[in-house]
């Protein structure tokens, strides 16, 4: 009865938000007296997958199909559903990012699971399965109780600090059958910005607005952000 985690990796390394997510799942698993199973779609290094144990993963289910190297919401949802069935899971967690927002609703609909999108707390199990999230574009919080048997949660990245401990996860292969429909969304071109700190993973953010008067003054903020090692936002 594990807690299932959808992991994301880039260039062989797991993203900071994935480490945060596995750690979040570990706290839920502790409260539910169960274990954490991290799900890794696509090519990944064995040592990196084992190292997820340091943030609380007990097991890794690796679906090594090369077609999963690019996001396919349909295929990823199938992978999560297969992992949940194998583990008898009642809780599935993803990051509240473009991947999680595409995959989590599909798997929730598939499994008839209630969902909280953008959680900023661990679930309170004393009151059912109550999770806090931002609403009204950050002007308030809502406490949402998921009442279905299976529950899906997407975690707002950068909510909790990552604290690495000891431990290695056991890695197993998971076979999932796909059909052509699962990969109907085909990538034609990718445009990635390398080097810059992604906003969702930034420890520090420099934010500018109308006070800068015009784009000709933006360079000052770029210099400040580079000096502080911060991400830039507006």
């Amino acid at each position, binding site marked *: 009865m594990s807690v299932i985690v959808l992991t*994301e990796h880039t260039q062989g390394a797991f993203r900071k938000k994935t480490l945060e997510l596995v750690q979040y799942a570990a706290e839920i698993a502790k409260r539910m007296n169960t274990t954490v199973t991290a799900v890794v779609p696509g090519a990944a290094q064995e040592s990196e997958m084992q190292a997820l144990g340091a943030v609380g993963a007990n097991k890794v289910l690796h679906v090594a199909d090369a077609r999963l190297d690019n996001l396919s919401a349909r295929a990823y949802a199938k992978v999560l559903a297969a992992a949940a069935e194998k583990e008898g899971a009642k809780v599935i967690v993803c990051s509240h990012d473009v991947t999680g927002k595409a995959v989590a609703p*599909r798997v929730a609909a598939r499994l008839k699971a209630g969902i909280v999108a953008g959680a900023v707390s661990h679930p309170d199990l004393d009151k059912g399965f109550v999770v806090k999230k931002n609403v009204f574009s950050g002007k308030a919080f*809502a406490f949402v109780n998921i*009442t279905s048997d299976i529950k899906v949660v997407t975690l707002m990245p950068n909510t909790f600090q990552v604290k690495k401990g000891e431990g290695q996860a056991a890695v197993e292969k998971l076979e999932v059958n796909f059909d052509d429909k699962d990969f109907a969304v085909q990538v034609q071109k990718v445009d990635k910005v390398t080097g810059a700190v992604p906003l969702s993973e930034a420890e520090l953010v420099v934010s500018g607005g109308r006070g800068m008067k015009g784009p000709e003054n933006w360079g000052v903020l770029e210099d400040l952000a580079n000096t502080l090692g911060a991400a830039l936002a507006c």
Partner: protein
Amino acid sequence: MKILVCIAQVPDTTSKIVFTDNNTRFNTQGVTMIINPYDEWYALVRALELKESGAATAVHLVTVGKADAEPVIRKALALGGDEAIRIDTDSNDPYVVAAELAAYAKNEGYDLVLCGKESIDYNNGIVGGMLAEMLDMNYIGFATKVDIAGGTATVSREIEGGEEVVSCPLPLVISCQKGVAEARIPNMRGIMAARTKPLKVVSPAATNALSDIVSYELPPAKTGVKMFSAENLDELVAALHNEAKVI
């Protein structure tokens, strides 16, 4: 190509957020309701552009809401669209909203379903993906550009750290954000025409909620802004280090 645009009714962005009934309900008294901006400015306008270019034969608008949503639906029809459908129920559970939309849409033969990337009240961004699963369609979220030709969609979408261009055959569900279209203002002819365009009301399918908002909370009051003179940079750096602890 037949397009369905999902429209949500939401509180105006400048609304004061107040809760009532022991913080269990959002207080709508005095609140102006509007079309969810992502649905209006991007999903709906793009659908209308596709009709104007001849790529689409019909644009239908659908809302899950009670009768008080009808003024907002008429505002959407004032921008364009051939007819609107109101599914006569209300819910803050995205599963219920998606299930109601799916129950209506599944036998109507839509080739393309467009929605906004999220609603500005609950900020879930979930209904589009759920609807796609329920209709057994593919889903492309966070589109910044949508083109349709020969039964295939070419979509630019946001991904981690950048953007990618993907293609997918119809039928398809796409959630839209900035870049998909330019917001329009309804003209007088559109406003007059909207009064008589068909607005069908359909009964909801029996759907059980899988989640429930049990309470709300307002954030703690913000402390004031501290101003520093440009001549006093040492004091600013000290405050950033010792008080804000960000450097």
